[in-house]
C-alpha cells in the first residue's frame, strides 16, 4: 500500500502569492495513496527538510512529493534529505509549482487549480517509482592513448603528471607524429623540433608512461573504467631493449634505395633505419619489405655489426593485453592524396609539391639540408637554376570543395592559411630575390597574433596575395611551370611562370581512425572525424563514456589548439581515473528479455553503444526451450536518453525513472 506524503512550499510569497498553498495541500489529501500533506514556508530550508525527514519516519512514507520550485533547483536536495531518513532517494518527485506555475500565472484561482493538477501528476508518478540504486563499477587506473603525435604526447604527459599510468600506442617506429616533419611553427617561427623533442624525451623518461611504438590497437572491449585492449607490437626485428640507437647498422646496410617516408619520399633511406636523429624510442627498425635478409635470407650485415646483439630476424608480432580505465583517441591526420587534381600537375612535375613537402625541403635535416631547391634539382643543388625564383602557393587544394570524386573535403582545413603565410614569409626572408604569389579564396586568420602575422607577410615581406584561384598548372619543356589563375580584384586572368608550385593540401583524419572508432563504439561524422559528446560543452569527450578525444582526430586544428585540447582531454581523463569507482546514473534503460525480439532497432539509435546482443535460451510457454537473440543494456554506459524505448516496437525497452507507465500516469493525471 502506498503511503505518500505531499509537502507544499510557500517559497515565501513566491508561490503563496499566486497559489493557495493550503488549498493545494488539502486537495491532494483526497488523492488515493496520500496519507499526509502539509504546507510550509520554505521547504528547502533546514527546517523544511527536517519536516520531510520526520514525516517519512513518523508516517512510514513510501513516497514523497514536494510541490516547490523546479526540480532542476532542489530535486537533489530533497532526494538527499529522503535518503537520510531511510527512504530511497528515487522515491521523491517534485511538482514544479513555482517556475511553471506561480511565476507565470497572475490569477489565484487558475494558479491554484494548476498547482493541484501538477501535484496530482507527481503523485501519480511517485506511486509507480521504484527504489533505484546507482550501480558502482571499479575504475582501472590506467589510460591508453592511441596515437603518439603532439596531441597524444601532451595528453599522456599531463595524465602521468597527475600520477596515473598511461600507455601510448604509436603505429610508427617513433612518437612525434606530423610535428616532427614540420620545420618552423607559426606565428612565432620557432623551430618545431626544438619544442617537440624535449616533450618526446619527457615521455620516454617518465616512469608513468609506457610507449608502444611500431604498435597498433587490435581490439577494445569493455566500457568506461573497465576497458580491455589488445595491442599488437609489430615485429621490428630489433630488440628494443638491447638496441642503443648507435646507428652502426644503418651505416652498413647495403640497401640504400628505400623511399624515405619521413622526408615524404624526397630522398631515400636504408632498409634498417631510425626515422630521424631525435626519434623516441631511438631504436632501429628493419623494413622487411626491403631487407635483403628478410627477403631472400642473404646479407645479415646489420646483425654482424651490431655490438649489442639487438638484431633478431625471427622476431614475431606480439599481442599484449592490458586493462584501462580511459581511452584517448589521438589518431591525427594526413594530407589528402591529390593525384586526381590533374589541373595542378602534381603527378606530372616534381616541382609541384605539397606544403608538407615544402616543410621538408626547408628543414635543415631535410633532403636538401635546409636549402630551398626545386625538387627536380635535388641531385644538382649547385646548378644556378636549382633555386626557385618564382614560387606560387595555391590555397584550398581539396578543402572547401564538394568534388568528392577527387577526394575533396567540404570542410576548411583550418591550418593552411597560416602555414602558407609562414612559408611565404620564411622564403622571402631567406631568399629576398624570390617572388612569392599566394592565390587565395579567403584568408582565414582567427587566432592570437594570427592576422598580424599574415599582414606582416604582405606588408613587410612583400608576398603577393592574389584573390583568386589557380585554374591550371602546365609544366613546360624547360621545366618551368605555367600557372594560370584569376585575379578577381583586377578582373584579369594571370599567367605566372613559376619554378615551384606549392599546394596547400587539405588534411583528413588518419585512415586508421574509422576502425579505431568502430572498436571504441565512438561515433564519427561523415568525414571520419570523431564526434564530441557535446559540440560546445563536452568537446573533448566522445559520446561513448570513457573515450576521450585529443587533437585533429576531432577536427582540423593547429598546434596551439591541439595542445590546448590535449591538456583538456587529460584533465577529463584524470577526472575519471581519480575515482575509485564510478557511480552510475540509475535512470538507465533496461530490456525485458522475455519481450525482446532481438531486432537491433535499439542498438541503432543508441548514441553510446550501450546495447549488446546475445543468444539466450528461453523456456517457451509450451515448455520447449528456444534460443533467442536478446538485447541487454550496460548500465555503466547508458546515459538514459530513452531513444531506445521508442525505437523498440515490442516495448521491451523501458527507462528507469521515466518509464512508460510513469509518463502515462502523469499524462493521465494532467488530463483528468
Amino acid at each position: 500500500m502506498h503511503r505518500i506524503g505531499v509537502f507544499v512550499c510557500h517559497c515565501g510569497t513566491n508561490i503563496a502569492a499566486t497559489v493557495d498553498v493550503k488549498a493545494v495541500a488539502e486537495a491532494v489529501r483526497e488523492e488515493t495513496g496520500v496519507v499526509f500533506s502539509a504546507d510550509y514556508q520554505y521547504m528547502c530550508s533546514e527546517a523544511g527538510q527536517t519536516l520531510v525527514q520526520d514525516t517519512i519516519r513518523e508516517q512510514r512514507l513510501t513516497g514523497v512529493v514536494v510541490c516547490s520550485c523546479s526540480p532542476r533547483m532542489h530535486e537533489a536536495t530533497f532526494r538527499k534529505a529522503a535518503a537520510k531518513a531511510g527512504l530511497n532517494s528515487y522515491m521523491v518527485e517534485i511538482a514544479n509549482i513555482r517556475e511553471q506555475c506561480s511565476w507565470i500565472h497572475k490569477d489565484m484561482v487558475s494558479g491554484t487549480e494548476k498547482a493541484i493538477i501538477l501535484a496530482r501528476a507527481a503523485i501519480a508518478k511517485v506511486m509507480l517509482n521504484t527504489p533505484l540504486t546507482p550501480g558502482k563499477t571499479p575504475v582501472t587506473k590506467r589510460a591508453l592513448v592511441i596515437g603518439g603525435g603532439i596531441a597524444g604526447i601532451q595528453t599522456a604527459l599531463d595524465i602521468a603528471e597527475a600520477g596515473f599510468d598511461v600507455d601510448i600506442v604509436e603505429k610508427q617506429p617513433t612518437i612525434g607524429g606530423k610535428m616532427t616533419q614540420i620545420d618552423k611553427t607559426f606565428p612565432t617561427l620557432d623551430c618545431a623540433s626544438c619544442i617537440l623533442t624535449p616533450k618526446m624525451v619527457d615521455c620516454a623518461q617518465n616512469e608513468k608512461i609506457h610507449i608502444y611504438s611500431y604498435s597498433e590497437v587490435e581490439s577494445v572491449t569493455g566500457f568506461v573504467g573497465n576497458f580491455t585492449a589488445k595491442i599488437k607490437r609489430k615485429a621490428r626485428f630489433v630488440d628494443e631493449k638491447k638496441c642503443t640507437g648507435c646507428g652502426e647498422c644503418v651505416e652498413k646496410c647495403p640497401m640504400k634505395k628505400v623511399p624515405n617516408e619521413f622526408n615524404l619520399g624526397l630522398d631515400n633511406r636504408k632498409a634498417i633505419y631510425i626515422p630521424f636523429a631525435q626519434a623516441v624510442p631511438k631504436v632501429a627498425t628493419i623494413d622487411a619489405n626491403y631487407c635483403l635478409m628478410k627477403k631472400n635470407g642473404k646479407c645479415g650485415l646489420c646483425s654482424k655489426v651490431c655490438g649489442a646483439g639487438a638484431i633478431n630476424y625471427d622476431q614475431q608480432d606480439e599481442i599484449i593485453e592490458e586493462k584501462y580505465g580511459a581511452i584517448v583517441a589521438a589518431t591525427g591526420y594526413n594530407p589528402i592524396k591529390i593525384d586526381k587534381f590533374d589541373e595542378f600537375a602534381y603527378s606530372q612535375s616534381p616541382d609541384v609539391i605539397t606544403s608538407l613537402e615544402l616543410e621538408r625541403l626547408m628543414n635543415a635535416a631535410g633532403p636538401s639540408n635546409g636549402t630551398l631547391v626545386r625538387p627536380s634539382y635535388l641531385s644538382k643543388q649547385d646548378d644556378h637554376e636549382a633555386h626557385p625564383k618564382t614560387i606560387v602557393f595555391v590555397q584550398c587544394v581539396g578543402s572547401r570543395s564538394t568534388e568528392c570524386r577527387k577526394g575533396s573535403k567540404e570542410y576548411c582545413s583550418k591550418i593552411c592559411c597560416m602555414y602558407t603565410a609562414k612559408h611565404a614569409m620564411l622564403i622571402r626572408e631567406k631568399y629576398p630575390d624570390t617572388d612569392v604569389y599566394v592565390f587565395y579564396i579567403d584568408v582565414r586568420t582567427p587566432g592570437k597574433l594570427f592576422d598580424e602575422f599574415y599582414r606582416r607577410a604582405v606588408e613587410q615581406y612583400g608576398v603577393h596575395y592574389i584573390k583568386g584561384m589557380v585554374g591550371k598548372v602546365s609544366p613546360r619543356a624547360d621545366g618551368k611551370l605555367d600557372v594560370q589563375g584569376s585575379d578577381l580584384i583586377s578582373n584579369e586572368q594571370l599567367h605566372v611562370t613559376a619554378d615551384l608550385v606549392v599546394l596547400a593540401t587539405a588534411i583528413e583524419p588518419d585512415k586508421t581512425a574509422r576502425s579505431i572508432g568502430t572498436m571504441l563504439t565512438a561515433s564519427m561524422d561523415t568525414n571520419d572525424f570523431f564526434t564530441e559528446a557535446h559540440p560546445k560543452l563536452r568537446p573533448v569527450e566522445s559520446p561513448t563514456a570513457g573515450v576521450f578525444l585529443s587533437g585533429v582526430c576531432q577536427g582540423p586544428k593547429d598546434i596551439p589548439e591541439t595542445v590546448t585540447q590535449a591538456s583538456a582531454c587529460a584533465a577529463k581523463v584524470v577526472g575519471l581515473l581519480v575515482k575509485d569507482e564510478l557511480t552510475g546514473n540509475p535512470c538507465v534503460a533496461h530490456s525485458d528479455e522475455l519481450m525482446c525480439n532481438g531486432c537491433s532497432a535499439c542498438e541503432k539509435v543508441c548514441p553510446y553503444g550501450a546495447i549488446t546482443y546475445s543468444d539466450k535460451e528461453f523456456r517457451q510457454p509450451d515448455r520447449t526451450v528456444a534460443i533467442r537473440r536478446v538485447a541487454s543494456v550496460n548500465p555503466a554506459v547508458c546515459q538514459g536518453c530513452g531513444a531506445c524505448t521508442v525505437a523498440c516496437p515490442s516495448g521491451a525497452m523501458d527507462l528507469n525513472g521515466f518509464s512508460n507507465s510513469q509518463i502515462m500516469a502523469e499524462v493521465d493525471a494532467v488530463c483528468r
Partner: protein
Amino acid sequence: MQEVKDRAKQLLADGTVNRVVGWKAGEFSYDITPAVFTSAEEIDKDFIYNDFCAPNLSKYLIKESRKEGKLLVFLKPCDTYSFNQLLKEHRILRENVYVIGVPCTGKVDIDTVRAMGFQGITGMESDGENVTVHTLYGDKTVLKADTLGDKCKTCKSKKHVVYDELIGEDGEVNTDGARFELVEKLEKMTADERFEFWRGELSKCIRCNACRNVCPACSCENCVFDNPASGIQQRAAVNSFEENMFHLIRSFHVAGRCTDCGECTRVCPQNIPLHLINRKYIKDINEFYGDFQAGEDTETRAPLNAYTFDDCEPGIVYSRGGNE
C-alpha cells in the same frame, strides 16, 4: 507449375532440405493454405503454385527456421522483401533456409472476383491472361487483370531481392509510383473528408488481429496490444479512439520496416484498405528522407533509426496542402 513441384521433390530427395514451406490446395481453387511438406507424396498430392497463391510465406520462417534442419521456401518477388527485412532484424536464421524465387504475374483475389458480382464460386482457372470462373449459377471468363487484389494491382516489384535459386525469369522493380495514387488522392482531400473516410473505414474494424498476425513486420514476441504492462493493451476496439489507436500505433511500429506486401489489406475481413496507412508512411519517408524500400537489402538503416543533420522539420506537415 510442375517445375516448382519437381524442384521441391528433388531438393527433398537429395537431402538439401528436409521440408518444404509452400502452398496447399484447398476445396476450391482459391482457398490456398500455407503448409509444410515433408515428402514427395505430400507434394504430389497437395502442393500447388498458381495464380491464386497469394499468401506471403516469409513470416512462417521465424518459427520454421529455428527448427531442426534446413528448409526450402518458395518466395514470390514481393515476399523476398519481407524475407530480407526479417533477416535484417535477425528474425530468420538464413543458414537454415533455402530460398527459391518463383515468378509472379499477380494473384487473383477472391474478394475482387466476388465484388465483380459472382456468387457461388466453385472453381477458377487462370491461363495468365484470362480467368474462367465456375459458379453454381454458370461459368464466365474475365480478364485476369480485373481480378487482382489491391496488393497486386499496384505491384511494387517483380524482382527477387534475395534467393538461392530462381525459377523463371526475374522481373523489374516497378517505379511508376502508381501505388501512391490513392494516398495522393486522400492527401488532396480536406481534413474533414479524410477524417470521414478513415472513420468510415476504421469503424468497421473488429480487432480480429488478422492484419497484425499476418504482417511480416509485426513479428514481436509479445505485441504491446496484448501486453497488460504496456498501458495500451486492447482486447477489442471498444470505441473510435481505440480503433484509431490500434491502427496508428501498429502502422508507426512498422513504419520504415513495412515492405508494402499488402497482406494486411488482403486478409482484412472487413475490407479496410489498411495498406494505405502504411503506404502513407512509405510515401512520406520517400519524400522527406529520400527513397527507401524496406527489405531491399539487409544493411541499410531503417529511416526511423537514422537521421541526417538537415532533415526536414516537423513543421513541413503544416505547410502542405489539404487543410481546408
